[in-house]
């Protein structure tokens, strides 16, 4: 899936009176993304290809068009990113990394394709689980992204997320991971990438998600964090990632899914946020941008739509706030 931005832009002024979600336009937008190989940006974003595929696929599921991309083509690509050691790279020829491994697992979960994984790679699920488990730092409980060693609560959440989707949580020291997340709690109620770093909605999502998977939300000061998250809403209805920063559609997801896990979603004004998200659509060519007037891309498209799903926008499938995947019923 291409991460190329554009071709279109979100409408600059508000859309006319009856605003709605342009489902068919967004479906076509996503279908067309992979036909843009003549653009340099397509190749410059190759390091995000597997994430992009996951984002596009999830958007299609939420829009109620799960078959808009060919399943076998998707699986071929996913397996071509899988390394011998059980990790996924962003694209063939890219080193394995936690972020892509998580996307790989999420795609397999979405397509219910763990059976095909075993057909193609014997013991594949265990191999992937081992790749992830080996990235846990036994001293601190947190996770690195790859052998290079960068650590971040994003990787920790990703690890627990993927392992729980595969039923392999027992491969890691969950309690240690939990203690590490707890040590990232800040004075304002939020969480950062590591102990003491600034609170950020994206990192709040990863920390609350990890604690939810571990069944340890009791460690969260839920009222305080809920208040901090609700303070992310600005007068125009949009949400920001940190105090005194601009609104951005993707925070509709990071902020709201966290609030959903804390059961505090009603602390923001859903109607105003819905309006804001709808204003970020390109009504002509499809796709959503970070804010009105900017170029659209698949990242903001999926997280805008996932946000609308949490807001119970009519006609959308239900998103799972914890795994950021479609909710299998």
């Amino acid at each position, binding site marked *: 899936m291409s991460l190329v931005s554009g071709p279109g832009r979100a409408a600059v002024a508000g859309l006319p009176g009856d605003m709605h979600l342009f489902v068919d336009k967004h479906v076509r937008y996503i279908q067309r993304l992979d*036909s843009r*190989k003549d653009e340099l940006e397509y190749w410059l974003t190759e390091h995000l290809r597997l994430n992009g595929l996951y984002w596009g696929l999830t958007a299609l599921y939420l829009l109620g068009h799960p078959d808009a991309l060919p399943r076998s083509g998707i699986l*071929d690509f996913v397996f071509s990113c899988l390394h011998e050691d059980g990790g996924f790279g962003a694209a063939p020829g890219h080193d394995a990394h936690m972020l892509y491994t998580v996307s790989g697992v999420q795609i397999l979960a979405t397509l219910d394709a763990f059976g095909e994984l075993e057909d193609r790679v014997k013991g594949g699920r265990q191999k992937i689980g081992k790749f992830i488990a080996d990235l846990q730092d036994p001293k601190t409980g947190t996770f690195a992204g790859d052998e290079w060693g960068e650590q971040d609560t994003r990787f920790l959440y990703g690890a627990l997320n993927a392992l729980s989707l595969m039923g392999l949580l027992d491969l890691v020291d969950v309690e240690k991971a939990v203690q590490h997340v707890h040590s990232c709690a800040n004075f304002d109620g939020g969480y950062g*990438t590591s102990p003491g*770093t*600034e609170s950020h909605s994206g990192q709040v999502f990863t920390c609350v998600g990890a604690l939810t998977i571990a069944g340890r939300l009791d460690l969260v000061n839920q009222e305080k964090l809920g208040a901090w998250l609700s303070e992310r809403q600005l007068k125009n209805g949009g949400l920001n990632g940190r105090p*005194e920063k601009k609104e951005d559609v993707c925070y509709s997801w990071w902020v709201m899914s966290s609030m959903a896990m804390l059961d505090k979603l009603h602390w923001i004004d859903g109607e105003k946020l819905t309006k804001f998200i709808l204003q970020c659509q390109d009504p002509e060519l499809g796709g959503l941008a970070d804010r009105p007037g900017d170029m659209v891309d698949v990242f903001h498209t999926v997280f805008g739509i996932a946000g609308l799903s949490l807001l119970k926008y009519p006609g959308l499938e239900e998103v799972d706030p914890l795994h950021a995947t479609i909710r299998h019923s």
Partner: protein
Amino acid sequence: MPKFYHDDEAWADIAPLPQDDGGLHPLAAISYSDEYSEAMGYLRAVMAKNEYSDRVLGLTEHIISMNPAHYTVWLYRANTISEIGRPLQDEIAWLNPTALKHMKNYQIWHHRHTIIDALGSADGEAEFISSMLEKDSKNYHVWSYRQWLVKRFDLFDKPEELEWTHSMIESDVRNNSAWNHRYYIVVGGREGKLSVELAKQEIGYTQAAIRKAPQNQSPWNYILGILRAAELPKSTLKDFTCEFADVQRPEEVYSSHALDILADIYAEEENSKENAAKALELLATKYDPIRANYWNYRKGLLDQPNIAA
């Protein structure tokens, strides 16, 4: 000026490896930038034979200048540096302008991290950070990196660190990253309890900042963090919050944050529940109606016995 390898003598022994795009559309024509495409072909080729050399260093530099987010290139560069024993100062000298060009890139930071850690010296890092923050004063990577430096080189008690933080707050009192950093060096990154004297000093400092911009969340969060760390009650701030909000004069509220804290202070006082309710009512209806549900939830708590807010 584009750089090509196919007519470069120094690369004559290498046959570039073609792109394998994973079979989703294997036959699609690829006509993206020839320069990038060719450089990647040479990188795949040297990686396939595990070559670590000066020319590989130059090749990774070239690719990074075109696409700094390609993490595999960084990883290979890091390995090359250690294999050929490149002086780490040289690497930092190259990294400085590269980082300035690619502000939001993750890889650059981790690379810098490992190199400075191995060098064992933070000399020059403060200047580098200042030049980064001049371009984007709230850059998350830069501030996280600064915190790592403080911890790695134990800069907590260096007066320059607090002075610098002060200058950052001074130039933009709404910079939440700067307030977070201040908390980190005053309380968060240290062991042990915050002394009452230091707490008082920080409270005074923050109050002055709030008076400049009363509707600014960051110092309000900070001051509450300081109170908690020093185990002081919120009522310590009662007179101060009344400078910005008075429930008896609902037209003259200058800070919703003051009203929020005042509600908590009243809720804990004997016989002031009514005032607490008024403050929350004002927030729900007039000063922060977008979060009316939250404020109404808080109001509901007032009716429950023994709730410590």
